């Protein structure tokens, strides 16, 4: 038998490697989407109920006593912000809890052993967070349309900002899910980072009403640009450039995605 005969060719492996890798990426994305859907009473419906309560309180009880902002009733003005709160919180919670749990019960090793690249692993977790965020966002929009006849100025821009906002917080959630040693660590980031950024990002007020120094401070808050984009998508009004808001959010999302891929690559809290 010649040495050629003794050679085992793995070229079949190589030829299909690339397409197989993407099948793996879709499988991981679907698995994580199915995971949150199996718990929809915990993951999808609660934000819908809390947003409906916001609409009832601010729309029907308190909202009538607050003057219109930019020609819209108060509830209509804050609806895009409420939408963003639901989307970002869900995207963040999805990614952080999946990663934390996967590290805790070591199921992450199963994924790390697979032929997926770190970029594909991170992207799959991010995609599932985007899907959860956008799904919740769409349900909140439906509630807004049904309860207070919320208009939709530009569905494309609305969807675009829903997606990139969910991506930003999905990636951030992955980082925190990697870093957290206990569930409380995730709660700390929610209470001390996500919630303050949301409330100070122009969800409940217009920056035009703020004194100049606070207006400048507000411009440093990335949530402001996400709220601005969603507000344009829904109401057709914006306080800064839409393109600028998109680019800033995109830059932030890309940076966070890059950091999470890097953390996987160095095995941060994944490999001893």
């Amino acid at each position, binding site marked *: 038998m010649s*040495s050629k005969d*003794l*050679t*085992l*060719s*793995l*070229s079949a*492996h*190589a030829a*299909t*490697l690339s*397409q*197989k*890798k*993407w*099948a*793996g990426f*879709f*499988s*991981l994305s*679907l*698995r994580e989407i*199915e*995971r949150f859907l*199996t718990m929809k009473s915990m993951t999808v419906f609660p934000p819908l109920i809390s947003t409906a309560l916001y609409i009832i309180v601010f729309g029907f009880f308190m909202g009538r006593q607050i003057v219109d902002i930019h020609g819209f009733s108060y509830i209509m003005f804050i609806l895009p912000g409420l939408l963003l709160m639901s989307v970002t919180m869900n995207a963040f919670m999805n990614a952080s809890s999946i990663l934390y749990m996967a590290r805790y*019960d*070591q*199921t992450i*090793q*199963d*994924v*790390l*052993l*697979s*032929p*997926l*690249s770190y970029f594909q692993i991170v992207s799959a977790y991010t995609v599932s967070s985007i899907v959860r965020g956008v799904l919740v966002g769409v349900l909140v929009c439906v509630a807004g349309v049904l309860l207070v006849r919320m208009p939709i100025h530009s569905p494309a821009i609305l969807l675009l900002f829903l997606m990139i906002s969910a991506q930003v917080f999905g990636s951030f959630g992955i980082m925190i899910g990697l870093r957290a040693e206990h569930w409380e660590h995730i709660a700390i980031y929610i209470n001390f980072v996500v919630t303050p950024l949301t409330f100070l990002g122009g969800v409940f007020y217009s920056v035009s009403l703020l004194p100049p120094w606070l207006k400048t401070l507000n411009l440093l808050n990335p949530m402001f640009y996400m709220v601005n984009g969603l507000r344009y998508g829904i109401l057709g009004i914006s306080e800064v450039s839409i393109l600028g808001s998109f680019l800033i959010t995109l830059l932030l999302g890309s940076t966070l995605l890059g950091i999470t891929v890097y953390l996987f690559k160095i*095995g941060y809290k994944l*490999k*001893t």
Partner: protein
Amino acid sequence: MNISKAVAALEISGLHKYYGSFHALKGIDLIVNRGSFFGLLGANGAGKSTSIHMICGLTKKTQGSIKVLGYEVEHHHEIISRLIGLSQQEFNLDRFFPLHKLLRYHGRLYGIGKKILDHRLDELMSQFGLWEYRNQLTHRLSGGFKRRIMLVRALLHDPEILILDEPSAGVDIELRIDLWRYLKKLNQEGKTIILTTHYLEEAQSLCDDIALLREGEIILQGRKDDIVSKLKGNLINFFLPNPLETPHVE
């Protein structure tokens, strides 16, 4: 991408691992030939699982080189992951999904097409007596069944090298014998199998080659018969004239 038959399944040289100041692996050199059944023996804490995890890229090495079928573990993760199937000592099964779904998602991670995956799942779940439990959540199953699932998961993508970290831990004698028979068959079909175990008799009945690890060092390495004969001189055998009586507890 061609892999010559002459290339070793696993080639480790000068492998060191430190956990802080603790020197867990102290310069391991090891060669596992393709198609062999290799046993890595050692007591708890000897460094068996650490070595296995480093081969699979789950633990970072401090120093040294690990090659799987000629590919450096550090640089060819995506190729090596298809060539290796690992059944870990600790159960790490996703508790959210029923068994068939869990394995199906796992198979898809490796890009296995639906038809082949269905066939593999039928074959392996029947082989390991898991078929009737396919709709169960894994955390509701006993340790023995979890061990079987771990083995099916490792075999699902039909890897060239099968690495089993204490595969018979927590399994009953019946499964152990079935498992040994099945592993022998796989090995005869050409699969390279690397097995870690505490039990000399397990290595003795399965392996061709053995390495003995102690406190992070390989103290003996070679053909099974040579190692066993060397070890036998250091063993004390107790022969009981009568079976022990089980104490009666009120």
